[in-house]
């Protein structure tokens, strides 16, 4: 603090100017590009073909689409409600298991070729999204609202979210056990050629398409509806929004419904692409928070950009790293952002 005051009094010194240049948006984007080029160079040095790198990049975009579904909700809840929601990953898991539960109730239909899932999964997706949103809102009513009323600092909210995360996971463990599950056991999921020898599974294309569709709907909601405007205003400046007569209670409800709903969809999509495990959401937390901070807290479009970057870097790193380290790579990107520009790509100077 004292240092900041001294600097203001004396005008920007050369070192301060340098620091500002390093912390600029251009510098961060350049740094991220450099990281990607570095990854490609490393992979190339190990004899990985360009075609494989390209296909990894395509897969990274798809992974980014799933991450974006989680990250957008996380960034809205973080930005609008000031809750670092450590239960967000477990909300995703919760959505996936709710869909699994629905599948056991519904008769299994024929797969919608070329996809591996049937129409029942689409129906369940529509049902699961509001359910997960309601779960989040319920958590808010029972826990966060009381803490907010007490004007609890954000770390206490984070701790409550952590408690909520373990609560959700214990319910999942009790209901379904700790084993790996699949939506459809034993159904083949062949990859098809997309272009230039790049092979993807049709499911993955569907996931990306759905993610883009949901994000487009969210865009309409945020930009065109009154509630969306109120949410953006609250994320921008909560006190100002409250004084201007914005319906805070409605904003809280809709933030949870939207954020939780997107998380639920993301969880179902991630489970469709891989498997269901009770810990899957917890392991996604790191890439999610990295995406959110990279794209600036509270900025939904920033979260999308951040998620795509994290997805591509994660997948590209698997060209020469053990794929298990994916979340670790996301963490490394996060540390870079925190070192150089903690307010993220779209943040204002001194925002963090």
């Amino acid at each position: 603090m004292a240092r900041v005051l001294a600097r203001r009094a004396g005008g920007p010194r050369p070192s301060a100017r340098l620091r500002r240049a390093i912390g600029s948006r251009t510098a961060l984007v350049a740094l991220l590009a450099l990281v990607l080029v570095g990854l490609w160079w490393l992979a190339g040095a190990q004899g990985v073909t360009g075609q494989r790198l390209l296909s990894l990049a395509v897969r990274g975009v798809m992974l980014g689409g799933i991450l974006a579904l989680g990250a957008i909700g996380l960034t809205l809840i973080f930005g609008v409600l000031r809750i670092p929601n450590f239960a967000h990953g477990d909300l995703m898991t919760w959505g996936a298991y709710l869909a699994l539960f629905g599948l056991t109730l519904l008769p299994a239909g024929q797969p919608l070729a070329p996809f591996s899932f049937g129409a029942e999964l689409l129906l369940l997706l529509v049902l699961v999204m509001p359910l997960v949103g309601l779960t989040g809102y319920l958590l808010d009513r029972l826990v966060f609202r009381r803490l907010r009323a007490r004007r609890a600092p954000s770390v206490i909210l984070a701790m409550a979210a952590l408690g909520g995360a373990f609560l959700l996971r214990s319910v999942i463990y009790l209901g379904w056990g700790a084993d790996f599950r699949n939506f459809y056991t034993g159904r083949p999921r062949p990859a098809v050629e997309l272009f230039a020898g790049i092979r993807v599974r049709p499911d993955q294309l569907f996931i990306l398409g759905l993610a883009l569709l949901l994000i487009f709907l969210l865009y309409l909601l945020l930009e065109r509806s009154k509630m969306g405007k109120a949410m953006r205003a609250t994320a921008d400046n909560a006190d100002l929004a409250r004084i201007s007569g914005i319906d805070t209670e409605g904003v809280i409800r809709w933030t949870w419904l939207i954020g939780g709903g997107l998380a639920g969809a993301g969880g179902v999509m991630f489970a469709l692409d891989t498997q269901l495990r009770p810990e899957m959401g917890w392991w996604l937390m790191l890439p999610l928070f990295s995406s959110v901070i990279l794209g600036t807290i509270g900025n939904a479009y920033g979260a999308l950009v951040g998620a795509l970057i994290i997805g591509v870097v994660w997948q590209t790193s698997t060209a020469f790293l053990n794929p298990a380290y994916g979340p670790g790579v996301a963490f490394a990107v996060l540390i870079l952002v925190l070192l150089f520009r903690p307010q993220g790509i779209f943040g204002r100077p001194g925002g963090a």
Partner: protein
Amino acid sequence: MGDAALAKSLLLALPLAFLAARALPARVPWIARALLGAAAGWAVAFVVALVVPPGQMAYLVSFAIVGSIYAVLALGLNVQWGYTGLFNIGIAAFFAIGAFTSALVTTSMPTGAAAAFSQQAFGLGAPFLAGVVAAGVAAGVLALLVGGPTLRLREDYLAIATIGIAELVRLVFQNERWLANGPQPLRGIPQPLACLVRDPGCGWLPPPLAALFDPLAPRDYPYVYLAIATLFVIVVYLVLERAIRSPWGRVLRAVREDEAAAAMAGKDVARVRLQAFVVGAVIMGLGGALYAHYMIAIDYTHFDALYATFLVWVMLMLGGSGNNRGAILGAFALWGVWTGAAFLVDLARPVLAAISSDLPARGPYLRLLFIALLMLFILLYRPKGLIGEERFVSRDSQGRDG
């Protein structure tokens, strides 16, 4: 039988003597307190060792050892959260790095047939204390690396970074076979002072003392380890109590209560927070070493977020953040609840089976449900925990809030 009870009581006496000495009023001279406490503690230990059946005694001893390890972790967290307000949810990282460092330094390289299926780095065969020191140093260095870039930022960034480092540490120990045998357990971690229970005995002990421990058989080793573990807790507790009442401890609380005011008073806030973070992490690293030498074989699954981070948090919150006695009390109380709940779940087996045939096997997860609810309950209705924070202005003066 009586001989063994005497030897066991000598090993059990340390924590009891400490508790007894603490219970005596402060106006008694310290030398008298120490002597009286030692006598009372040893007497109680002797009666306990003589009366309690061996089966239950073995259970109690192992319970107390794990409780002590958790107490060390909770004390470390108390420095970070309780006194300084740093939100570390990656306790597992420092715990794991301490455990693996001490294990790698004190084990010997596998040779012969074992080398075919067991790999590791270091394998220096160093003594226990060297392993403990190395564990503390490694955890401290890791804390510097994590805290450096994140402690100057918003407080919730530290939480995210600590989750990240915990995951990263776990991934490394899971995947790198050359380092610590990868997903397979790292075995052969030496037991300190094991010579007390072995037949040739400890060569360095004076013969009369060594004779005292002669009746102990190798299966009595947990008694020895309990003495070591409780010694750890007592030393960490005393050092922290001293530190927290020093000017440094006051600065920690000042930073927690009002960062801007502390900065205006000329305190380097970022530096103080980093110090507290590192000190807490070093203590967690020591806890890790303590764990490794008790378990003898460790692998990455021991350091997941539930056991190594979440439970410690609930322990500290249950006992009372900002209170070292609360941290220790919370550790033992919650570990008691956790292990006791296992019995309850076993008893409830027929009920669970009646609800669903899958449930009995998943019964243990009821404990997780209960602990998560307990945490939310404490947060909402009893934020100060069982004891609450100890308020004091400085050493030897009366509390502000009574």
